[in-house]
């Protein structure tokens, strides 16, 4: 009875996570390892050089010896990954320092204002890759109960690709909804949307029962930028670059179109075999490390993945499979229906109209797309979003459109998530179907109890 009362009157108070762009050592750990074999030494040397880990003892990787102490400082976002790697190679370790920053703080003389003033991250501006890396680490740090950053793979130029997992703590095995952004470098609004999406989910988690409901059974895997090398290239060199940065023909030609590189009728339609083309499909299916990084994870988890979303621009479309054939997928009607609902929800916000349909009919034929591949390996719901606009600005969408674009797109994406959640996890507590409905039911229950 008291439980009802408690639930009736509890209102989530939300404290949005703010964070600072300044360097700190929060959560960094120092590990103590004594390598036993030459193989272990070699693996540790490799780990230190590729991840650029901070060696405290010895100072250089080449001085690592079997039977001798090794102390490494591992930055917080890499801690899990490094430990996983050590476990995999049966290298045992001890944690020498659990949190380097704590130690630093303890040994720093007290000054008048010890606290750093956190700067807010602007979600209504475009951010270069360095800032997105920092943002990911901070998001995990400020929301550690819900968010973990995971290693996906590496780009051609050896940059680490991370995705964020948003997961409500629970004993249950969850199903998964995957969303990736930034497959094409010049489509800047796409990574901006992934960041916005993460922010919205985390900010509204406490106050929005719909979010808590679907997170009961579904984890969200969000990849803010897949084509990191290309994205950086579009910031530093050529704003309208599309592909990745893989070198071909002795470095005289660069880039594979990652969205023609997946193993979905690869190399058949709407592609070029010529590196100088923007739709060059690569030297073979999954020839690119970025493609393989996505494929490896999704293959591994495919029996749990209910929905695959990939975000692009421009054109204002929600595209369904397939691009490589006009033959519709078995669940075409349902796919279309859900997409129409999502597009309608989007239009309600600012009147922006989206078209819905299979790529092969609405646009043109193309093979090797990630969305086709996801559907072909059995992920039931697979959609490509092409965000604003319709060509007025195209790829160079002004920053003042980031907010409205993200707000309306959020409605479409959550409509899809809600549908998937209702379909695979029907029922669920009445409390959580809608805030006010739940509240009034609670109050009714409470009143009934008081009266009887």
């Amino acid at each position, binding site marked *: 009875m008291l439980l009802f009362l408690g639930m009736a009157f509890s209102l989530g108070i939300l404290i949005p996570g703010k964070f600072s762009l300044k360097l700190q050592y929060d959560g960094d750990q120092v590990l103590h390892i004594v390598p036993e074999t030459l193989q272990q030494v070699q693996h540790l040397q490799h780990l230190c050089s590729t991840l650029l880990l901070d060696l405290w003892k010895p100072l250089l990787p080449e001085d690592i010896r079997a039977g001798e102490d090794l102390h490494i400082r591992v930055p917080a976002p890499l801690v899990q990954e490094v430990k996983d790697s050590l476990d995999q190679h049966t290298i045992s370790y001890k944690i020498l320092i659990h949190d380097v920053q704590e130690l630093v703080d303890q040994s720093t003389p007290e000054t008048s204002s010890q606290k750093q003033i956190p700067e807010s991250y602007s979600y209504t501006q475009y951010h270069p890759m360095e800032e997105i890396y920092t943002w990911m680490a901070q998001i995990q740090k400020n929301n550690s109960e819900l968010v973990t950053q995971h290693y996906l793979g590496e780009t051609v130029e050896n940059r680490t690709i991370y995705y964020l997992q948003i997961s409500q703590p629970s004993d249950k095995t969850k199903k998964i909804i995957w969303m990736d952004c930034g497959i094409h470098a010049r489509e800047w609004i796409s990574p901006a949307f992934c960041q916005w999406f993460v922010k919205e989910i985390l900010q509204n988690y406490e106050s929005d029962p719909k979010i808590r409901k679907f997170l009961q059974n579904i984890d969200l895997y969000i990849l803010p930028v897949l084509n990191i090398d290309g994205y950086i290239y579009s*910031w530093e060199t050529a704003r309208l670059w599309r592909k990745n940065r893989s070198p071909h023909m002795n470095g005289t030609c660069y880039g594979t179109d990652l969205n023609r590189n997946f193993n979905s009728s690869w190399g058949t339609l709407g592609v070029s075999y010529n590196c100088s083309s923007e*739709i060059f499909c690569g030297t073979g299916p999954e020839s690119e490390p970025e493609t393989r990084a996505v494929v490896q994870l999704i293959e591994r988890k495919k029996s749990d993945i209910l929905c695959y979303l990939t975000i692009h621009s421009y054109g204002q479309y929600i595209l369904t499979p397939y691009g490589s054939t006009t033959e519709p997928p078995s669940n075409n009607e349902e796919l279309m229906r859900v997409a129409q609902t999502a597009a309608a929800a989007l239009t309600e916000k600012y009147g922006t109209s989206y*078209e819905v349909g299979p790529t092969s009919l609405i646009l043109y034929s193309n093979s090797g797309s990630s969305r086709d591949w996801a559907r072909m390996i059995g992920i039931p719901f697979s959609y490509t979003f092409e965000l604003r606009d319709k060509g007025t600005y195209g790829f160079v969408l002004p920053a003042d459109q980031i907010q409205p674009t993200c707000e309306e797109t959020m409605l479409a994406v959550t409509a899809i998530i809600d549908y998937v959640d209702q379909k695979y996890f029907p029922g669920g507590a009445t409390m959580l179907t809608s805030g006010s409905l739940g509240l009034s039911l609670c109050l009714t229950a409470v009143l009934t109890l008081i009266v009887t």
Partner: protein
Amino acid sequence: MAELPPTHGPASRAAALATAYISHRHGSPGHGWVLRDVRRARREDIDGIGHKYHLEFVLEDIFEKDSTVNCTAEVLYHLGNEKSAPDVQFTIEGELENTDEAHNAFYNRIQSLKKELEAENIPDSYGNVPPEMQPIRALAWAASGYVIWQNSTENTKYQLAQIKHVKQVKRTDEYLEFDYVILLHENVSQEIIPWQMTVLWHPQHGIEVTQNSCQPKHALD
């Protein structure tokens, strides 16, 4: 005559072409149009001649999203001869807004410049267009409509992506002349194609593209 779903590729490509043509014919330093929606599309296959699309569509002003205009058009793609531009006939519902005042203001401003106007990257990487560059952008939009019309086929969909470079060329007569290098985005091949255009404009005489040529890809570097 076959009815086409208005969302389908060929219909939207034909409508985009009609839009470019309309922008070329009616564009000015004050206006430019982008295709917002296709309402209806039908296709007629004419033996020995080509494919003719009958379209009803809505245009949106690139400077004012809420300003729209309804149009109809017939677009004929000539069979086999990809060198010849498609034939376009169109009607516009209602009157287009009169921007004579703005035209004269722009004209006078450019004529009174001490140094020839020169600029790059419009819009810039972040989508910004300085207000004084808007007419320059609108002129390019209209002129690119001509280039797009002349080079379109049933399997292409062009859009002006960016003005890479623009330089005014001083003239002794009353016309304003601008030399542009623009970037066209082609939606099927996804190519970014640099294109040079020489554009003449006069408030009373409208826009003329006196010279245009496709540039090699490395013109971007």
